[in-house]
């Protein structure tokens, strides 16, 4: 038989093979992109719509402007307020910081998961199979992430343009500018996540590097916004750049320059670094050999502590830094909590009175969201241990499921308690540093007060882990995301009691502004424990999941 010269695959088939990672990245990120795009849109719409309802008269609106216009407490937490006498300025003030931070968290988690996580799981090698190298794979991944960012932006933009037309009375270009400003944080941190994915040696490490960048950014802009002489600090902070876009009020489009520059630069650096390292390797030195360290390897509980130790330490540092920061700005910010409108907002967030304590009361509610996020991270790690087949080595040995998961819950609870205590002590120290007075024990109690919502989140996670394991992480994010959103929006917009009651943080007293409501905390913790027990039973009865 005459051998025929086999024609190569057609050009389109090769193109499809070469974009397999890009398409996979789009597929794996588009669902959360759509979800957050909607949430951002709804946040803007609800702020705009509620304004007209609450601040009916011009007098009320002027009062709002006078109170918040130069309010450092609000500025520290939510960014500076401008032109609150009209609905556009109010909407920008109310939705910007929340959307920006949530967008940044989404961005860094998504890009580290889809770039580093996929690589660590070995999926890229499988998919690319010689069609591309690591730099090519990273390029494709970034293209996929760019599509996801566009999806978030487009959905937000649609909502903002619509609300801009009907209720904000601004044209489409200004509305699109606003939507772009809202989602710029997400784009920036998609880029930073891509960069840290190349620098770090694992997904978790990459996410924590990017998380540090986010924390520092928030801290810098907070000090910059709250302390008058230090305004220049804002320009060192990526979140500060986004803030300086000032959509709808006093636009500064040139603030896009550092944003676009940093995003593109980190994407470009990511591709370059990817081309220079091995699959699974890191750019920063990661010594691959060492003498064995045999501490904390002697049983399930000790070993779990060893596995979780870096995370425990990391979270304690995050909470310590946040505590010091909040404590430091508390005095300056608290003195500006004057005027009925500001008090009203702070009291809707649960804090009464004025001064450092009132400021800290609201700050601790927001910090409690960070602690609850930590709870999500711990349970998600246990889930990954199961699915990625590492727990198997213990569970196929003489370790019971109760013993294994119990160890994770114990370590997680211990870590949460530590974070709360550290946050309390650090903010007390921050306040003391400024020469303001705050009772040590009441601030510590306020720290412990943050524990209840996170225990509830952990309980919900455990319930899902036992009963519907695939939903473990989504369920926790749903509980946390919903609660945070309802509570933050409620601060500025009175909501129906029924809605408010669904937020975990609404049941949390804004200590130290008010006394800790131990009974409410007890009920929330009790509900969490109850869910955990149901989940526990499920865990003992279900199949172990692998792969």
């Amino acid at each position, binding site marked *: 038989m005459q051998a025929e010269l086999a024609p190569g695959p057609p050009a389109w088939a090769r193109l499809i093979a070469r974009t397999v990672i890009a398409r996979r990245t789009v597929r794996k990120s588009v669902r959360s992109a759509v979800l957050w795009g909607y949430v951002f849109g709804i946040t803007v719409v609800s702020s705009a719509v509620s304004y007209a309802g609450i601040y009916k008269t011009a007098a009320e609106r002027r009062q709002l402007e006078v109170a918040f216009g130069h309010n450092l407490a609000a500025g520290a937490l939510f960014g500076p307020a401008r032109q609150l006498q009209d609905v556009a300025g109010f909407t920008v003030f109310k939705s910007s910081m929340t959307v920006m931070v949530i967008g940044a968290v989404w961005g860094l988690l998504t890009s580290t998961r889809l770039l580093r996580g996929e690589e660590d799981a070995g999926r890229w090698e499988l998919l690319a199979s010689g069609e591309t190298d690591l730099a090519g794979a990273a390029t494709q991944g970034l293209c996929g992430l760019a599509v996801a960012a566009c999806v978030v932006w487009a959905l937000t933009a649609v909502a903002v343009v619509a609300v801009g037309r009907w209720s904000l009375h601004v044209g489409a270009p200004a509305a699109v500018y606003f939507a772009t400003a809202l989602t710029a944080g997400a784009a920036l941190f998609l880029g930073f996540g891509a960069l840290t994915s190349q620098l770090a040696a694992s997904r978790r490490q990459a996410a924590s590097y990017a998380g540090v960048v986010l924390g520092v950014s928030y801290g810098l802009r907070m000090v910059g916004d709250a302390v008058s002489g230090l305004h220049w600090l804002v320009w060192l902070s990526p979140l500060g750049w986004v803030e300086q876009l000032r959509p709808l009020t006093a636009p500064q489009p040139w603030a896009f320059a550092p944003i676009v520059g940093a995003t593109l630069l980190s994407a470009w650096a990511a591709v370059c670094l990817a081309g220079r390292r091995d699959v699974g390797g890191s750019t920063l030195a990661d010594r691959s050999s*060492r003498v064995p360290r045999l501490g904390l390897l002697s049983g399930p509980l000790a070993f779990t502590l060893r596995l979780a130790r870096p995370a425990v330490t990391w979270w304690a540092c995050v909470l310590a830094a946040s505590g010091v920061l909040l404590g430091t700005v508390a005095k300056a910010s608290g003195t500006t909590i004057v005027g009925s409108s500001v008090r009203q907002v702070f009291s809707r967030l649960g804090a009464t009175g004025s001064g450092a304590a009132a400021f800290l009361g609201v700050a601790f509610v927001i910090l409690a969201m960070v602690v609850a996020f930590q709870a999500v991270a711990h349970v998600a790690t246990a889930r990954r241990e199961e699915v990625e087949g590492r727990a198997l*080595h213990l569970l196929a040995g003489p370790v019971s499921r109760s013993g294994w998961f119990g160890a994770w819950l114990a370590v997680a609870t211990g870590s949460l308690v530590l974070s709360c205590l550290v946050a309390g002590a650090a903010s007390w120290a921050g306040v003391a540093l400024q020469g303001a007075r705050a009772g040590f024990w009441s601030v510590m109690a306020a720290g412990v007060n943050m524990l209840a919502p996170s225990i509830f989140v952990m309980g919900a996670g455990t319930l899902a882990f036992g009963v519907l394991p695939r939903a473990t992480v989504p369920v926790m994010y749903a509980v946390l995301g919903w609660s945070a959103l309802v509570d933050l929006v409620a601060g500025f917009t009175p909501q129906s009691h029924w809605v408010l009651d669904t937020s975990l943080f609404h049941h949390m007293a804004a200590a130290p502004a008010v006394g800790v409501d131990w009974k409410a905390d007890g009920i929330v913790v009790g509900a969490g424990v109850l869910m955990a027990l149901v989940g526990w039973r499920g865990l003992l009865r279900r199949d172990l999941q692998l792969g």
Partner: protein
Amino acid sequence: MTGTSLSAVHIEGLSKFYGDVGALVDLDLDVAPGEVVGYLGPNGAGKTTTIRLLLGLARATAGRAEVFGVDCQRRPVEAHRRLAFVPGEANLWPELTGAETLHVLGQVHGRVDEAYRNRLVERFDLDTSKKVRAYSKGNRQKVLLVAALTTRADLLVLDEPTSGLDPLMEQAFRASVAEARDRGQTIFLSSHVLSEVEALCDRVAILRQGRLVESGTLDQMRRLSAVSVEARFAGRVPDLSGLEGVDGAVVEGGVLRASVSGRIEPFLAVIAQAGVSRLVVREPSLEELFLALYGESPQQPEAVPASAG
């Protein structure tokens, strides 16, 4: 089973259904203490499923499994004290070094033969000072093998333990399993490497589509199966079409190749009469045995015409 002798593994009516799909259907299997059993079957046959049920990691739909008389589904921890397990996918903690991993796995199991561990580390040529992150797949597999072997557990459950090992390490593995066997440990080995099974196992059990299709010693299985014959004839090749037990006869330039099952005398009589000049009779290799067994699937897929290219 009769008498008081306790099986190392006793499986009775064990089934696992995922929805309507029977991953394992009504399995009965016994492994005597000290026996080395090969567990074979095509991809998706249900080998890993069996092992997960045996370890109590998955819940059985029906039936039961015991390890040295301990119910694996109800009292898994107690059962696990008697066994060590090596999965086919070696996912380990990337931040630990090889030595740390061996240490923690040993601590968890409770008893380890440290001298033997050092010997094995040398035999498998493992650099235990390296972090797992820096290990190749084969090296991670070696860590798990060493960890399991050093427990000296009464039962070793191995699920494709040599995937990723190079031929030299495959030899080290065989030597180690042979040592374990000589010490009287029981070994349950699921594998796709047939030469490995042939070299190590006293008995094999073959699974297909969740059902046990064969179980017995290799000799027994060979006796039941066809032998392949190759006969050269000086003159005309005889017609074998009427002969019982003769399959797949092919004639090529005076040479007849066929497989003969059951009684071989009628076949011999016919070829003797026809003037056979040379005769080679060969027992089937394990591989041929399997291909025959795997192949006779009731829902064999249609042969797909190979595309040119």
